[in-house]
């Protein structure tokens, strides 16, 4: 993925941070759901969720993600930033296999390859609409 000369460092840092937070968020979130007491019901108990430290950490990560995301959106088009941060699909996939021992197969790997291809195509476009950039 090539970074254009006029690509702002702040935006690059924001996108990277978004990917890192998103990855941590997904793994902690799944761990939090798995840590809840199994009462036989498939539906989550709201009280159990609110008293789980892992869920509180999930909420903290979401807050971090939210403020970082607002900064990213103020520097880039939504239709550019959102697909680029989907690099976290790759990291979540790899880490969930490594740390949560989730099953994987060739179809999933092919899907991840397609995600990477999509991100590459999106990265070749302008990160902000020209008319909007002039308005600033």
């Amino acid at each position: 993925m090539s970074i254009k000369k006029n690509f702002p460092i702040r935006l690059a840092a924001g996108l990277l941070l978004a990917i890192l937070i998103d990855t941590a968020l997904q793994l902690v979130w799944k761990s939090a759901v798995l840590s809840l007491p199994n009462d036989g019901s498939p539906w989550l108990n709201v009280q159990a969720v609110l008293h789980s430290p892992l869920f509180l950490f999930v909420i903290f990560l979401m807050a971090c993600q939210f403020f970082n995301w607002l900064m990213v959106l103020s520097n880039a088009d939504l239709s550019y930033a959102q697909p680029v941060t989907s690099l976290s699909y790759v990291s979540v996939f790899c880490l969930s296999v490594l740390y949560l021992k989730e099953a994987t197969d060739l179809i999933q790997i092919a899907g991840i390859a397609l995600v990477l291809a999509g991100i590459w195509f999106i990265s070749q476009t302008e990160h902000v609409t020209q008319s909007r950039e002039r308005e600033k």
Partner: protein
Amino acid sequence: MIGQTAIGVLLVVICALLEGVGQVFLKKSVLGAVRWYLWISFGVAILLLETMIYSEALLFLDVGAAYAISSLNLISVTFMSR
């Protein structure tokens, strides 16, 4: 009878649609809209609802699968932001 995997997939698809709406509202809030606080409030409310639904989905699916399926939100965000 719908299987557990199908329920999980359905919940994630609903999340993807909500994500598109929520992201558009957040983008509206930073574009200098007059009532930016309303846009941000609606955006956060929708994303909170999505959070609850996604938590349910994680009960039925592996995070590797659930998160990959949630990439449908790329489509919903791209279309809704145009």
